[in-house]
Every structure is written in structure tokens, then in C-alpha cells.
């Protein structure tokens, strides 16, 4: 029994569940972002949505949670933070029952970076992929810039996580308390001679009400955004001549995959079309040329239309000759292209199941096993 007397419940259940859920989601986000191939993007996106929900919850719980979950209990002044750093430097840190100043700083930094990462992630999703709530208001260019920022922030996050883990290990050694165990069972030991503080209980109903109100407002805003059609995607009727004449020999490539200049060059050189005579009757050729010119890459603002606009000068209308195509497919071995279900490099739709729409979503990639 005496053991229990110097123990105190520090981390309430919501805070502990938050912490470990965040660990899982951030690990998922980092692995699917940096390591996994593109087609894991769906999971990456859900990890992002989950992370932002957790952070919102934690901020609310930082107001309504039990004593040590409240932000006010670990909002230290700069002077206190510097003092603690000095204690750490001399390896004599004072004992804190809740978060210590160094840990608190880390929490604020992690929350700031995680929030920024999810916001830039939403911009990438809306701008580059034309998906998510911001698809209607984000141009490809904004998404492209956001992608670079997203990646840099994520790298900083990795460093922060490393510092966080190192910090916990250092503090555990210096103060001889098992901080990891505390984050599982919620208890911390009070050093002898220190009186247990008066702790305030959590206010779950207030927290729930606040969250509900917040969810209603932000949900409505996001819903309004998500009803907007994705920017940069135009309405396009089918051209029967294009579908049948070109589709007789190869996949019907989406007109957005090449710029006007490429289509024009292609249509004037059909007698020698990548090693074959593909000449057409004049009226049919004119109809197809007009259709392609109207719906070429310039009319769109999608990832594919932007990327493939940088054509190869040697073969201005061969998509697989572009530097971007080559780079994106460099990890795929020649054997994969020879598989029966793939056929060859010209068959986008073998793996990109939405190739006909011109979208080329990462989540729609599925490489045939055979």
C-alpha cells in the first residue's frame, strides 16, 4: 500500500490514447510518404486526416482535460525553459510531475509541424492530385510548391521525433523515472518529500460539446469546399473518330497528356507514326486534329497535363520519352513491362486503372502480377 501513496495519476486515458495513436498514424504517414510506392497514397491520406483530427482533439483536451493534460500546466515562460536547459546541461534536471519545459517545447513544436504538414498535404492533394476538400480552389502550381514544403517539413518532423526520443531517454536516465511506462499506465512517482499537487479533474462533457461544435462548423466549411468541382478539369465530349481511328492500334490516350505543339506535330506526321504508316483520310484527320488541339494539355491543370507538357525534343509526341515518365518509372523493371497483364510501355491503363480519364491518381495504380 505504501507504494501507492507516492504514485500519482498524471496522464489521463484520452491523453495516453492520443499519444500512442499519434505515434501509429505519424509512423504510417512517414512510411507511406517516404518509403512505400505511390499506390499506398490512399493510406497516407487517411493517416493525414487522422493526424489532424488527433491534433484538434488534443488542443481541445488541452483546455478541458485533467490537470496535466491542460496546456496551461506546461506553458512555461522562456526563463523557465532556459533554466531547465541549463539544469539538463549540468545533468541535474529538476523533477516535474507533468511535462517538463523541454518536453513542453517539443510538444508545441510537434503540434505546429504536424499541423503544417497536414495543411500542406491537403494543398498537395488538391493541387497536384485534384482530390480532397481543396481540389476546387488549389491550382497545380500551388500544389507543387506545397509538395516541396510538405517534404521539408516532414524531414524536420523526423529530426524532431528523434530529438523527442533522445530527450525522453536522457531525462529517464537523469531523473530515474520510467517515462515510457507512465505514458502507458498514466502514473508517475512523486519524489519523497514532495507534496502531491492539487489536481483538477477533466471536463469530458464540455470537451465533447466543444468538439461537436467545432466539427459541425469545420465540417460544413469543408463540405462547401468539397462540392466545388476540382479546378483544372474540363468537360470533354468523346470524339468518335479519335476513339476508333487511334484506338484501333493503341490505347486511346487522354488529350491532356500532350501539349498542342505535340499533337500538331503528330497529326502532320502520321505517314511515319513511331515506325508505322498511320495515315488517315483528310476529313477524319482534320476532325481529330481539331479535337486534340482543343483538349490538349493547355486546357487542363492536372498533374499529368503539367508534367507531360515538358516533352522530349527528340520524339515530341512520345509520352514514354519524356524525362518525367522515365523518372517515375525508373524503379519498374523491364520484366514488369513484359508481363502479360502489362504488355508494354505504351499501355498506361494496364497499371493506371484511371488512365482513360487522364487523372492518373496514385491510389489507382495496380501493377498486374502476371
Amino acid at each position: 500500500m505504501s507504494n501507492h501513496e507516492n504514485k500519482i495519476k498524471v496522464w489521463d486515458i484520452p491523453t495516453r490514447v492520443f499519444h500512442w495513436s499519434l505515434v501509429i498514424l505519424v509512423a504510417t504517414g512517414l512510411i507511406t510518404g517516404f518509403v512505400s510506392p505511390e499506390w499506398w497514397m490512399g493510406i497516407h491520406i487517411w493517416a493525414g486526416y487522422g493526424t489532424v483530427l488527433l491534433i484538434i482533439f488534443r488542443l481541445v483536451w488541452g483546455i478541458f482535460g485533467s490537470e496535466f493534460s491542460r496546456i496551461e500546466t506546461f506553458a512555461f515562460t522562456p526563463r523557465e525553459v532556459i533554466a531547465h536547459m541549463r539544469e539538463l546541461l549540468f545533468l541535474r534536471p529538476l523533477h516535474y510531475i507533468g511535462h517538463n519545459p523541454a518536453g513542453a517545447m517539443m510538444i508545441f513544436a510537434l503540434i505546429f509541424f504536424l499541423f503544417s504538414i497536414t495543411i500542406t498535404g491537403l494543398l498537395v492533394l488538391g493541387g497536384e492530385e485534384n482530390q480532397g476538400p481543396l481540389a476546387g480552389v488549389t491550382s497545380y502550381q500551388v500544389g507543387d510548391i506545397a509538395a516541396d514544403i510538405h517534404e521539408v517539413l516532414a524531414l524536420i518532423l523526423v529530426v524532431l521525433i528523434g530529438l523527442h526520443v533522445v530527450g525522453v531517454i536522457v531525462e529517464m536516465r537523469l531523473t530515474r523515472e520510467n517515462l515510457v511506462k507512465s505514458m502507458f499506465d498514466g502514473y508517475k512517482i512523486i519524489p519523497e518529500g514532495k507534496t502531491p499537487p492539487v489536481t483538477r479533474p477533466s471536463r469530458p462533457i464540455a470537451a465533447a460539446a466543444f468538439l461537436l461544435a467545432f466539427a459541425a462548423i469545420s465540417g460544413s466549411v469543408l463540405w462547401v469546399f468539397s462540392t466545388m468541382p476540382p479546378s483544372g478539369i474540363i468537360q470533354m465530349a468523346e470524339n468518335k473518330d479519335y476513339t476508333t481511328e487511334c484506338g484501333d492500334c493503341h490505347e486511346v490516350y487522354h488529350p491532356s497528356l500532350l501539349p498542342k505543339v505535340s499533337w500538331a506535330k503528330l497529326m502532320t506526321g502520321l505517314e511515319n507514326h513511331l515506325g508505322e504508316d498511320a495515315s488517315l483520310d483528310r476529313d477524319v484527320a482534320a476532325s481529330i486534329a481539331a479535337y486534340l488541339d482543343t483538349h490538349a494539355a493547355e486546357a487542363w491543370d492536372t498533374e499529368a497535363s503539367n508534367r507531360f507538357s515538358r516533352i522530349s525534343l527528340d520524339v515530341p509526341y512520345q509520352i514514354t520519352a519524356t524525362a518525367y515518365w522515365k523518372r517515375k518509372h525508373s524503379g519498374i523493371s523491364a520484366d514488369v513491362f513484359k508481363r502479360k497483364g502489362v504488355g508494354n510501355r505504351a499501355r498506361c491503363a494496364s497499371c493506371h486503372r484511371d488512365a482513360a480519364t487522364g487523372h492518373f491518381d496514385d491510389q489507382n495504380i495496380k501493377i498486374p502480377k502476371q
Partner: protein
Amino acid sequence: MKTLHRTIVIATAAILFGGASSSIAVANPARDDIIKSFATQAEMPFSAERGKALFEAKPGGGKPETPSCTTCHGTSPLKAGQTRAGKLIEPMAVSKTSGRFTELKKVRKWFRRNCKSVMGRECTPQEKGDFLTYMSSK
């Protein structure tokens, strides 16, 4: 002289027997009209055998990617072929793909393109007729 004589005999026989028997099986007035239109410009009666030889030949003079009809159509007209870009080509044999060679516009287009791709020149009416006779007999 002797070989020419033999060729004519074989060709006539082919039309009388081979051609006639198969045209009963898969007769199509539109296709017959197309073949007839070539016949008026041809020097001699059409021969399925010459058509077969043409189909399987590697004449040279065309584009290096397509040395023969069989490059894309496969060696058997009864089986499907594949374009270089990976699209399926229905079997050429009329017995397998009944709609074959029934649309003059299509026939003209594909002869123009593919003869140029394989041989570097357009096919003669004689060659076209031989080819269609062969595919109709199959």
C-alpha cells in the same frame, strides 16, 4: 513457260474449288463487291495461294519495325494478332471474324497503311485481291 502454265492451272483450280467452296460458307455481298472491284484492275484471276505467300512474305522495303504482315497479325489468320502498341487484332480469317473486308473505306485505309509499312509501297489490285481471296478461304 511450263511453270507459268502450271501457276495458271493451280490458280484457276484454287478459285474454282478453294475460293468457291469457302465463299459459300461465308458469303457476303459487300465483300464480294470489294473483291470484284479489285478484279477489274487485276491481270490474272485471284489466288489464295499467292495471297498466303504475300501474307507470310518478308519483302523488305518497308519500315524496319514491320517486316511482314505476320509481325502484327501473327502467322495464322485463324488466330488473333497484336499491334505493336499491344492492342488485340481480331483474326484476319473471314471464318473467324465475319465482318472482315466488308467496308470499302476500311479496306482501302488498311491496305494503304499496312502495305506501305511492310513493303514501302501501296499494294497492287492483284495483291489486294489475292490477299482477300486467301483470307476469305480461311
